């Protein structure tokens, strides 16, 4: 009699574990729960609700036009498969010049020609996106060169040192090149 009670008790604890371990996969639901605030933050960044990007670099007068530059994220470049490391900047033209500027290009280092002016900013003139390749051997004291091409064919350049434009990229390059 008493042994059977003990056995039942033993069985009860066993069955509780037995029962609950099959619900453990529910812990995976915690992943989206935890990530939700980050997701919302990120989406508002993409949507421009937080402005041009996570960190605004500054505004420059370029010939007759003005352009504002921002880092999409305050961090180093990201590896994109075989294309290598890419760093994303956003740019905004002033409302008056949006109709005058045909294209804005960006590259690390001085461009040789219009053809090699770098990556083109795409999207709205008030929120252009530049995905700029950052070669692993880039000098960390390099300059970021922007080329603004007018519809009339005029070319104007703007320059930021990489240290101003993206301290995180400078840090990234230094770490990469130390290795």
């Amino acid at each position, binding site marked *: 009699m008493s042994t059977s009670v003990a056995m039942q008790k033993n069985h009860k604890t066993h069955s509780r574990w037995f029962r609950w371990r099959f619900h453990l996969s529910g812990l995976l639901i915690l992943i989206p729960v935890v990530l939700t605030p980050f997701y919302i933050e990120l989406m*508002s960044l993409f949507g421009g609700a937080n402005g041009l990007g996570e960190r605004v670099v500054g505004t420059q007068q370029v010939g007759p036009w003005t352009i504002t530059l921002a880092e999409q994220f305050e961090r180093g470049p990201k590896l994109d498969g075989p294309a290598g490391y890419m760093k994303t900047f956003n740019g905004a033209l002033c409302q008056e010049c949006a109709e005058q500027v045909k294209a804005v290009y960006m590259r690390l280092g001085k461009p040789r020609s219009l053809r090699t002016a770098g990556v083109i900013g795409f999207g709205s003139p*008030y929120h252009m996106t530049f995905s700029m390749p950052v070669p692993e051997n880039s000098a960390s004291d390099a300059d970021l060169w922007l080329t603004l091409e007018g519809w009339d064919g005029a070319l104007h350049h703007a320059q930021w040192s990489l240290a101003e434009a993206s301290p995180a990229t400078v840090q990234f390059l230094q770490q990469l090149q130390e290795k």
Partner: protein
Amino acid sequence: MNPNIEAKAPRKRTQWWFLLHSWLAMPIWLFLFFVCLTGTIATVSQEIIWLFDSSVRANPPADAGKMLSFDEVIEVIERDAPGAYVEKITRPVKSQFALTAEISYPDSTSENVFINPYTGEIQGRAASGFNFRQFVRAIHGWLLIPFNTGFTRYSLGWYMVSILGIPLLLSLITGLVVYKKFWRGFLQPRLRFNRGARVFWGDFHRLAGIWSIPFIFIISVTSIWFLIQGLLFEAGVPFNGVSQAPVYVARDEIPTSEQGRPPLLSADQAIAQVNALYDNVEAQVLHLPSTAFGHYRILGRSQAFPLVHESFLVNPYSGAIDEAMRVTDQPGLMLTRLSMRALHTGDFVGLTLKLVYFLFGVLLTMMVFSGMRIWTTRTFKSTKAAIRQKTARANLAGDPT
């Protein structure tokens, strides 16, 4: 256990199939339940927004005439916010919805604007970026785990979710094997409410299961495809076909202009160019050129093969159609990818199909739940001997936990 099933010969083999069926989903049932539930909500997420937000509805006036053309939509926005830049206009696939335009403002913010397709009234606005529809999709599709973290190029969550297609498909197959003469369930449906939870859930599980055979098959196969698609992408296999370099307008084809932007083709003119050369194209989505060297991108659902969108790139300076991607022009891998996605989401016919997907989504979610209920009631409410036997069998079968 159900004597109808286990008593039949050959007993041993049936038992083996039955054990496999029982153990496939049990260790992951709650996660699977969550994914099915969020997927069910995701199919009708647009309709849910419709229910709660009147500004996304079409609201036709009594004398509803023609719908606004794309040019008229652009005019509405120019009047509302001079200087604003229109990035994309989506015309409703389903006549219940308002037009949506993605707008970027001079202060670098952007918005989705909902426009009455008949009157041109701006009915509402929402900050672009976060929205309920994308949020539910992202939870269901990849648990919000970011893409391209360095470890994998797709999200890790994408794989965690899509791999569930395998136990789902195996559950369907093993379920049909152990459910002897399942086709009789169509003729003699049985759902007993008065014989306790175990009997009710058992009846439900079998009845919902046989009616959902095509749906479960579609969902599990498309999920397995999503897994394959991710792996193909990691391996660098192109979906656009090997020789699909992007198309841009050449620099010397663009007129110079002393007075700023030269006159471009209007959106309606671009669409007219497509319609002049191609039959049966109804423009649903219009992307405006994203650079001075870009094209109008016009998307319309194929009428011959509605699982797939067709796309056309119209040169905004010359009106030439520089790329036409009709169904037959798409490489096989791209067609597979587009069709699989449409089959998974059920968004290629209209509201009716969405509701059908929703209904079967609810059934599938409840099947996961009922499967768990059957498993636990059977295991815990039955005799100690049965438990011991089950444990022994489970060990034999190799505990998947």
